[in-house]
Each structure stands twice: as C-alpha cells, then as structure tokens.
C-alpha cells in the first residue's frame, strides 16, 4: 500500500510545530484512521478528540488541508496522495494540545439561551409539517465546525458579542418549535448578536449534517428581528389588526 505524508500540528498554547509522519494507507481509510496509526506506532501521546467515528457525535473536528472537517468523515482517497496532508486544530478556539481545542465557549453560550417553554394547556398534538423545520436544526451534532469557520469568531474574535451559527440554529429550533411560547428575539439580537452575521454562508458549507444553517435558520431569524425592530409599517399593521 502507498504511504502518505501527514503534517500534524503538535504543540500547546505555548506554541508548536507541524510534525511529519508517514502513514501506510489502506483501502477506505479516513484521516482519523491515520491519526490512530500515528498514535499507535509513533506518538502515543498525540492528542485527538474522537468518539463515535461515524460522523454522529461531532468530536473529531479539525482543519484538514486548511478546511474545517470531521476527521472521521474525510476519506484519504478524496485527498491528493502526492502532497502532504496537513492536520491542524480548529482555529476559532484556544488550543489545549495538538489537535484538541478548548470549546467550552460553546457550552457557555448555550446556557444563555432560554430553554423550551411550552404553551400552557397544550394537548401536545403537532403535525409533521410543524416539526419539520426544527427537526432539521436538531440534527446538529455540535461539531462546532460552523463556529470554527465563521469569520466573526475565527478572524474577528467576537466571542463576547456573537454566539456563532451553532447557537443561532439552536435558538431557531426553539423559536420555530410549534408549541414554544418563550420570546428569544431580543436576546437573539443583543446577546447572540445576529447582526454580526453577514450571511457569507461558510457555516453552511462546512456543516457535516448538511443543515441549511444560513437559509433556514439565520436568515429567518434575521427576518424575525426585522419584524420586531425594523419594520414600522408591519408594526402599525399589527397594532391595528391586533395580531401579534
């Protein structure tokens, strides 16, 4: 079997470098398999985060040849074997060690989103077409690749003002829940900072679950923010018709 050269980032918050490893390629191999091989034969302390190895848990996020990707889902036969393959940690989060980053930021943002609040006295009947939209967002495996690729976090480091695409789709899944009565529009605007998103769609491009993050979640939320804050005529109509 052929060999492929991997350049894997080794280091921590103090610094580090790309280290070359030769990996023997077998049929159907993915980048995560290559990392295991390195771990088992060359570098037992190589830090990688992984769980299911089936693109269902979203743990093994990294940047492969500069692209935010899941290592378990990137087959080597989709990469050019004549060139070295670079594997680096996600950049939007502080590094812990090697390919592992500190993603605790995400858990802090999640805590700020008000939870599901059901309509009082509901009989819990919901039709499939009522849950379809939110179900798409609930496919999210929290790999945080959308957060990693989002330039607002990645390049502008607006972690304090902007929650990132993952938490906008989480908010959307709650806002579009047919029986939810909580109002999250003000916090979506102010705390999650939806205005920082300039809908350049990189989150949608990297999503391994193929969730239409921008078109189906962020833009509809932006429109709901417009309803509330930027649509004087709409507001007038609502006042006169008594509709919410």
């Amino acid at each position, binding site marked *: 079997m052929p060999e492929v050269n991997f350049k894997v980032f080794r280091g921590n918050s103090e610094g580090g470098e790309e280290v070359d490893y030769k990996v023997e390629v077998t049929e*159907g191999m993915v980048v995560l398999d290559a990392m295991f091989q390195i771990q*088992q034969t060359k570098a*037992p*302390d190589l*830090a*990688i985060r992984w769980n*299911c190895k*089936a693109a*269902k848990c979203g743990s093994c996020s990294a940047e492969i040849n500069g692209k935010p990707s899941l290592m378990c889902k990137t087959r080597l036969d989709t990469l050019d074997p004549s060139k070295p393959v670079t594997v680096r940690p996600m950049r939007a989060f502080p590094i812990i060690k090697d390919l592992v980053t500190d993603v605790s930021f995400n858990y802090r943002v999640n805590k700020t989103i008000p*939870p599901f609040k059901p309509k009082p006295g509901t009989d819990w009947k919901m039709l499939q077409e009522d849950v379809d939209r939110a179900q798409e967002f609930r496919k999210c495996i929290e790999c945080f690749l959308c957060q990693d690729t989002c330039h607002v976090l990645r390049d502008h480091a607006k972690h304090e003002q902007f929650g990132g695409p993952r938490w906008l789709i989480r908010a959307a899944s709650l806002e579009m829940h047919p029986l939810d009565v909580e109002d999250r529009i003000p916090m979506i605007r102010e705390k999650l900072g939806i205005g920082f998103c300039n809908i350049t769609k990189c989150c949608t491009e990297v999503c391994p679950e193929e969730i239409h993050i921008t078109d189906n979640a962020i833009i509809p939320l932006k429109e709901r923010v417009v309803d509330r804050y930027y649509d004087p005529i709409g507001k007038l109509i609502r006042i006169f018709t008594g509709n919410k």
Partner: protein
Amino acid sequence: MATVDYETHEHDVLVIGSGGAGLRAAIEASASGLSVGLVCKSLLGKAHTVMAEGGVAAAMGTCDQDDSWQTHFYDTMNGGKMMNSWRMAQLHAQQAADRVRELQEWGALFDRTPSGDFLQRDFGGHQFRRLCHVGDRTGLEMIRTLQDKGVHLGIEVYMECAITRLLKDGDQIAGAFGYFRPDGRFIVFRAKAIILACGGIGRSYKVTSNSWECTGDGHALAYEAGAELLDMEFVQFHPTGMVWPPGVEGLLVTEAVRGEGGKLTNNKGERIMSKYDPDRMELSTRDVVARAIYTEVKEGRGTPHGGCYLDVSYKNPATVIRKLPSMYHQFKELANVDITKQAMEVGPTTHYVMGGVRVNPDTQQSRVPGLFAAGECAGGMHGGNRLGGNSLSDLLVFGRLAGIGAVDFVKGLKKQPSLDQAQVDDAVVEMTAPFEREGAETAYDVHADLQVSMQHNVGIFRTEADLAVGIENIGKLNERAKKVVAKGGRAFNPGWHLTRELKNMLIVSESIALSAQQRKESRASHSRLDYTEFDPEWAKVNSVVHKGPDGKMVIEAVAKDPMPEELTKILAEQKELQPQRELNKKERLAKAAKE
C-alpha cells in the same frame, strides 16, 4: 515522589457518565434540590447515546391501539429468554411511555402520525409498532433534550473528566477520584451518593459498534468498590455492523433498516432468515439474526468482505433517504455505497452488554450503600438479550429511578461519610505509576491483544476449550498490564489514559469469560457449541461475580427471585395472543415493504 496536587469538589449526588441514563438521573436528583455533579468522560452531549438510531420503545399505542405495558413486558421477557429481572422489566414497561412524553414536554420533537401523535415503528421482537423515533437519530434527539434540560437546572458538569476510583468510608460510598483529560490534573469528589451510568464494554472486543469510551468503567469501578456484576455472559452481538472498509468495521447499521423492510441475503441471493426464523424473518431477535449471518459466512456463503447483504435498494429511493438519512450518508461517505442502488454488506458486531452491576430493581442501589447504577452498566433489565429500542427507554426509566433512589438515600443518611486520605494517595500512585515505569510494553499493544483474544475465544459462539484459552490469556494480559508505560506528559495524553482503561476492560473481560464458562447451556445471546440446548436448571439461576477477599474474581450461580403470580398470569395470557399478533405484524411489514 513529591506530593501531587488535586482539587476537591463536593456534591450530594455525583453522577458518573453523561449519556441518557446519567443525564436523566442527574435531572431527577437536581430537581429535588440537592447539589448534583455530572462527570463526563468526553464533552457533554457526545456520549454513546447519540449513536442510538432506531427509536425508544414505549407501549403508547399511538399506531397500534392494542399495545399495552403487559405486551411490552411480555416481549421484553420473551426476548431476554426469561433471564430478566421481572421487576425491572415490569417497571420499564409500565413507565416507559410517561418518560417519553416527558421528553416531549422538555422540547424533544419526535416524528409524527398524520393525526399529530407520536409515530411509532416496528422493530425486532416487538409485536406492535412501539418505537418512537426521530428518523434514525433518536439518540441524538434524546441526549440533546436531556442535556439542555440538565444545563438549565444548574447541574454542575465536569467535562472530559475520567473517574479511576470510588472512595469509601467503611462500607459506604464517600466519593470518587479522577483526572481531567485536557490537563491531567487530579480531582477528588466528596459525595454522599454516586450513580454510575458509564455505559458499555464494547472496546474489549475487536469488532464493535462502541466508541473508545465504552471500556466498562462503571462495571469495573463498581466491582472494585465491592458491588456484584450480574449475568455478564450475555453480550449482544448486533447482527448488522459494517464489514468494510476496515476503518469502520463494526460500525452500527441500525435495525431500522430491517424495520423499514431491509432484506438479508447471502452470496447465492437466498433470503437467509427463511432458514433460521421463517416466521419473523429479518425482524427476529438480534441474537438469532446475528448467529444466522455468522453461520452463513462461516459456511462460505458470505459476501466478498465477509458479511451478508442487507438490501433496501428495491424500495423507492426518496423513501429510503427520508426514513434512513444517516444510514444513507454513512454508507455513501464511508464506504462509497449508495444504499438506494446497492445492497449493504453487514456482519455481527459487539454492541451491548445485558449484564451489569447488580442492583435493587426499585432503587437501582447496588449492595454497596450509596452506590447506584443505571443504564447499560446496570444489569438485569434485559436478561439474555435486549430488544432494539429497549435501551433508550431503559435509560430514561432507570435513570430516573436511580436519581430518586439516590435522593432518598442522601436524605435518609444519618452520618456524613468522610474521606480516607490513604485511598486518595493510593489512587494518585496508581495514575502516576505508568510514567515512572521503564520498559517497552504499551497499553495499545496489550489492548489490541485483549481485543483479539476476546473476539476469538469469548465471541458469538463459545466452547469450553476456547473459554479456557480466553481466561488464561486474560491472566497473562493482566500481568502485562501491570508493566505498561506512559510517555509524555499528563496533558491530554491518550496513551496514558488507556493504561487505566485497560484495567477496566480486563476486569470486564474476565467477568464475561468466567460467567460464560459457568453457564453450561445456550440461551439468548449466550451460545455454546458444546451445550447447544436450553437447560431448565440453568433457567433458575443468574451468574454473579464479585471481588473476593484475596482480590481474585469469584463467580457464583445465584437463584433467581420467583415471579409473582399476577405476572406469570400476564405472561400466559400474552402468550396465547402472540401467534395472531405475529401474523398481523408480518402482514403489516409486507405491506410496508411494498411502499
């Protein structure tokens, strides 16, 4: 060596494991106002529960009105070949529906019927449509719902933290010791009650659907702390794991594929199940289907990569993608197979352990006061074989009961347990020792050898001779495990972590092998080539192992609790109704397959 720093945290209830059972237990305990800590070996929300695909079994009767807890109870006992704890099976069948509705009230969005109710699907061993589901990502929906519920209740979550030892005050539980994976810093928890919800043991085997986390930590921690392990010989080999490419060998192919009409064939194009279970065909119980595939391959009728074909390509492609989206992507991306056009290749994979910590069925408490267990690491609920869909409901029902049990225990506690410094010091030494040893033995090598031995000697078919070899190998591997070295530092060092997990896997492996050796019959998932029949004598006992005073593992056959009359009556009534119901199911499936 110099004294090693550690930090100390205190909680009334400490839950170890953050899958479905751990989260459900933590929610219940937290709702009572106690201080609750939740320890995750990975990040929150990554536990193996996310891998559960097909659904959660609950006799709601939204699709088949005749369904009832009694039928669910019967199906569960029938699937487990009566080895189940009848009380657990009863509680489970009675409470599962309420637990699923509760999830909905916490925001979960299950698939719907045209009238707006829970949509339920057929599954192996369930006579009615009983599995509430969300496409084929039910586990993800469950864990996300529980996670968000828990986070907003104010549960303290310790992520990427591994527990290596339970601390005791005399007989009673007093806390736990562990380390944080990212930086290797040590941590001591003081706790009045501990709930183990650490999941499965699949990593002891070479071909498994389980993630790296499933190293039997809960089983081993409980065993070391003096609890008993029940019925460990019953390991479920899921019939359909991927067999190719090598990197994903063992990866689960959900039973929902068969639930949606998937046909199993050999390389001659024959429907294999018509030989092994012509009545229930592909939706026979998992043990039967797994053995069927294994036998076909062994007798030379397998596929090029050593499996059987599982085919849904005769169905409408849009239906396949809608009903089985993640299977479609899994095969497309990992194996280059389009399941709407081609058949999948599948073979058995180590999936689930029915055995586990022996607990009181009502409180989930082990024989160690203050130590509780729920979910896969607890034993008894599933008997000899678990039905698909019963594990997600198990997590909810017994996670909650364990939470209640722990709260009651803490509230009734008269004396605050105290920590024993010697135990903490000992735990520190155990963890730092691999760095101080010299030699060439790595945990990776020992682990790989253990997996091969368990796969060959304590696998899907067992014999006295193989088991003897397996047990001997475990002895040798135990010696090697004492010599493994760790290199590098303590910060996120998987090689170091494995040195400790190895010990857990060895304990679990030994308990499986000894229990399998003791049970001289074939029953449910436990198949012996030298004792191929059911034995009524063995039906009366459970296998129980515990740690002997000399540190050696002790195995016993313990008589089962007799079932009360009201339940035997239910079983008899249900049995009479079964033939007609199986016929109905067959018709239903035939109709669905045409869609």
